[in-house]
């Protein structure tokens, strides 16, 4: 009665409708008499004749063997089953085991057999005898409650899963299946079914209240010490922190996000007072709910990075967003922004923001978002910021991302003057090369925004630079294969600011499994022209990564030319050697230790550090 189709989209679409797998009324298939748990052919024939007009056989397949008497099957209430219905399980040797439905939900049920069956296994076929009157309404052109008629619209009737893109691809198939209405499973190859073949039964999505809450996160400790040949100069820090995400804590699909970190820094300098700082910082502490396929509205409160427009930053406040349709979403936020430095103090910068997002289709091949943020610093108007972002992600051809920050200045912004100004832009473009080669283009632009809030980050920048400085950057990164285990890598970059221009070039090779226990080797020649410095040199990086222990050895030789001098004292050679060992005693634990030495002229410095992270 049942079998399997191929895995093509049409078969799945048919399966969506057939996923109800109701053997739709009578069809000559009937209920059966059961005798002593094992049904005899004679008894079966007799009972078939008497019950033919009163019961309907609903075919099923065992999906899970719970014990020797109990098995889960892939049919449930939406297929017309009820607790107590008689069931038959067809053994591989031709015998039949009888039982009754012990429990069920929409898409599955548990059969309790009358006796233990040693060779009960997943994949066995069976039938449930269902009183015909339960389907009587279908004869009249109506269907029993919960019976699917449209694979696309009936909750849980699709086997396409969560993949929105797949869902879009299969939409035509679903529509076609929907036009056919309820169909009977007619499979021609049932005898060839084996356990490793997929079921094509429809499955309903698990609701948040049916899903157990869980916690994921990490705990990390990082310590770093820098020791120099300069007596009394050093730099040390310790960082400890944890990220915890409580998924679905209250059974409604919400998320509690926490991230806290403790930092200690000490900077010793002989010519000035030492600096020492300890910070305990709560970076995230928020609760968000919604924004799922069950709820188009999303609410977040607490301290969080704005999800709708992350460019607007971390917020101590409230955010709301709505997916209005497949194509449109919008949202708004209100609250205080913590200062963007290690202290993360809040309460000075208040903001209101709103955004709108358009997507081309369910797969979001193209998307554009525009947002506006108005902020106040200590109660005074500070920044009017527009952020526009977009991406273009076709299956083939060039893909690209772009983000644009535009500050709107008023006449009160004396350093800038009234009017809009692009303060930052970031554009990247990459062709789809099927990994036959790599090619990335990047353009970046920056001006200093004139804001009270960003004074924290621009404290040392002179006003005239805030007013007039601009930096353009353009770079090309790429690689091409030489052999299967060898490829050439390269990069070229250009920059231009209001004072000068320059750039860099890198050219090298990457080899995989080149020799001995080295997994990756990379050698690069480089040349760069900075604002005050020219440099050329070479780098070699060797990496060996095992399941438990990995090693990385890096060496750089560089010749620097400081352009401010006009004698030979402006050239110097700098060498750096770094060794890193990463130990993973367990999949969830990583311990990394590194030693980084730098030698230049008569000075040198060594950095030693460790980074440990436990994820769960």
């Amino acid at each position, binding site marked *: 009665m049942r079998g399997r189709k191929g895995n093509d989209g049409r078969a799945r679409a048919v399966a969506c409708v057939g996923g109800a797998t109701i053997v739709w009324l009578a069809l000559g298939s009937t209920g059966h008499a059961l005798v002593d748990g094992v049904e005899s052919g004679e008894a079966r024939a007799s009972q078939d004749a008497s019950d033919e007009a009163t019961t309907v056989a609903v075919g099923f397949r065992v999906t899970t063997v719970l014990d020797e008497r109990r098995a889960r099957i892939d049919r449930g209430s939406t297929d017309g089953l009820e607790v107590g219905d008689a069931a038959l399980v067809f053994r591989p040797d031709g015998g039949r085991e009888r039982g009754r439905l012990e429990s069920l939900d929409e898409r599955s049920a548990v059969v309790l057999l009358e006796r233990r069956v040693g060779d009960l296994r*997943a994949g066995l076929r069976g039938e449930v005898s269902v009183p015909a009157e339960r389907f009587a309404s279908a004869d009249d052109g109506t269907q029993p409650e919960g019976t699917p008629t449209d694979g696309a619209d009936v909750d849980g009737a699709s086997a396409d899963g969560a993949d929105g893109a797949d869902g879009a691809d299969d939409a035509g198939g679903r529509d076609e299946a929907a036009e056919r209405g309820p169909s009977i499973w007619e499979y021609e190859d049932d005898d060839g079914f084996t356990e490793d073949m997929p079921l094509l039964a429809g499955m309903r999505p698990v609701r948040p209240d049916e899903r157990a809450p869980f916690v994921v996160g990490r705990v990390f400790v990082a310590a770093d010490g820098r020791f*120099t040949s300069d007596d009394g100069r050093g730099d040390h820090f310790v960082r400890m922190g944890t990220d915890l*995400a409580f998924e679905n804590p209250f059974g409604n699909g919400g998320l509690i996000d926490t991230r806290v970190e403790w930092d200690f820094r000490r*900077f010793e300098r002989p010519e000035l007072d030492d600096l020492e700082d300890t910070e305990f910082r709560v970076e995230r502490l928020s609760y968000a709910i919604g924004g799922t396929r069950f709820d188009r509205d999303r609410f977040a409160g607490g301290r969080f990075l704005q999800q709708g427009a992350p460019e607007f930053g971390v917020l101590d406040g409230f955010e709301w967003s709505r997916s209005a349709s497949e194509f449109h979403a919008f949202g708004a936020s209100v609250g205080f922004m913590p200062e963007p430095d290690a202290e993360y103090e809040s309460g000075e910068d208040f903001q209101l923001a709103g955004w709108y997002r358009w997507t081309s289709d369910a797969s979001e091949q193209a998307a554009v978002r525009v947002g506006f943020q108005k902020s106040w610093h200590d109660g005074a108007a500070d920044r009017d910021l527009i952020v526009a972002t977009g991406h273009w992600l076709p299956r083939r051809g060039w893909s690209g991302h772009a983000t644009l920050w535009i500050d709107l200045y008023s006449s009160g912004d004396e350093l800038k003057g009234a009017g809009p100004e692009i303060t930052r832009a970031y554009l990247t473009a990459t062709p789809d090369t099927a990994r036959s080669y790599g090619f990335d283009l990047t353009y970046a632009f920056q001006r200093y925004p004139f804001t009270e809030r960003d004074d924290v980050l621009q404290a040392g920048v002179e006003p005239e630079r805030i007013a007039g400085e601009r930096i353009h950057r353009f770079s090309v990164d790429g690689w091409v294969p030489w052999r299967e285990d060898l490829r050439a890598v390269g990069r070229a970059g250009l*920059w231009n*600011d209001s004072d000068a221009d320059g750039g*860099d070039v890198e050219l090298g090779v990457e080899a995989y499994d080149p020799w001995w226990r080295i997994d990756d080797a990379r050698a690069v020649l480089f040349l760069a022209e900075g604002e005050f410095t020219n440099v050329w040199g070479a780098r070699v990086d060797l990496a060996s990564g095992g399941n438990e222990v990995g090693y990385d050895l890096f060496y750089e030789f560089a010749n*620097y030319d400081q352009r401010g001098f006009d004698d030979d004292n402006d050239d110097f050679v700098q060498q750096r050697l770094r060794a890193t060992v990463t130990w993973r005693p367990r999949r969830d634990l990583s311990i990394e230790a590194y030693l980084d030495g730098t030698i230049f002229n008569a000075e040198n410095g*060594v950095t030693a550090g460790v980074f440990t992270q436990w*994820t769960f």
Partner: protein
Amino acid sequence: MDVLIEALRRVVRENRAAVAVMALSAFLCACALQRTGGLEVHRWRAGLGPVVPHDTFPADCSLCHQGGDWNTLRPDFAFDHAAETGVPLEGAHDAAQCLRCHNDRGAVQVFAERGCAGCHEDVHQGQLGSRCDDCHDQLTWRAGGMVEWHSRTRFPLNGVHAITSCARCHEGADVGRFAPLDVECASCHYDNLLTAQNPDHFAFGWTNNCDDCHVPTTWQQAQGF
């Protein structure tokens, strides 16, 4: 009442852009709430089945599931993501819980095409672009090799700068803010300039062109005379 109206006018006059955005937001909300039919169609329908597509999975559910519900996986559950889906899970992703990516918040394929930002929040707030793996690995997410990476900027790190902690210059480093800095010396060394008394730099007007006398190869006084 007049005072209230005047105050309202002043708010509108002084915050036109903000008021416009708020008005637009209110308008969009109102439109959305009015379109009762349209709002019923969410882009990712609740009826699309489980968050992990099961249509190619083996028939024997007990290979992966255990217990009386569908949410508990067997302790020895294993899934070759690369072989089964064509998408290898690298680094920490290999040990991550399935539901961290396959969840009700969106379609994984769409997220994956957006890159890291599809699932991970961008702590750099968009200011460093979308190619996270230029700096981060997928195992610990710790950024490495930043000293050599800096040679691509206007300010290659040499001498003492190459062994100085990032946060000494990048004030927002601890919270992911690596906005490009001003490369002028005084931007970071203003304290040193203020205390330079032998000779008195301010008295001589030596506040610019530090590299006429100083090199970055020493922590001590100027060299090269």
